[in-house]
């Protein structure tokens, strides 16, 4: 799946997907759930939180 396809499915721009991938943007809970749903996985399998 391309970044553009994922962006289209969750209703954001490709730049937002790029920023999420590069850990430069923390998505909202709603967007995180949408992305997880696209991959058919639970949210904790797709995202992890790391303290600095």
């Amino acid at each position, binding site marked *: 799946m391309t970044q553009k396809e994922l962006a289209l499915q969750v209703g954001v721009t490709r*730049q*937002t997907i790029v*920023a999420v991938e590069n850990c430069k943007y923390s998505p909202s809970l709603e967007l995180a759930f949408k992305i997880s749903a696209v991959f058919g996985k639970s949210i904790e399998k797709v995202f992890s939180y790391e303290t600095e």
Partner: protein
Amino acid sequence: MPIQLKNTYIHIVTAVLIFGAYSWCVFGLLGVDYFTGPEALARIGKAITTLIVGGYAFELSIVFGALLLGPKLLKDMSHDWTLDERDMKIFYRSIHLSHLVLCAGLFASMGALAIGFEPFWVFNFLVLAFLFSVVAELGAKLYLYQSGT
């Protein structure tokens, strides 16, 4: 280049043109002496009004021009016009910074008036504060679009 960045660059160009034209008219064409004497306040008011009305008219013409030419220039980029949560976050953060700068400029202008600066210079401090607020907003947008939020 993302459409949001292109949009920011267009705003930078329009801001440079608008404030450049204002500076050229007020300081070059008319001169500081034009804004002294009994009609000074009326002339300053006209200059500021022209800046605001002319500036917005120019920006609107650019926006409508971009809308007309957009489909030809952008072709397959219609999806990139989406305004998503990250865009909104960047928008609010840059506007917030812009308002802080503008408020600081307003207080500085009032301070200048209080310590005895001429109205012409006080009004131009206000214009300068407006310019700095635009610079802060566009600079923040450029930085945040390129580095996340």
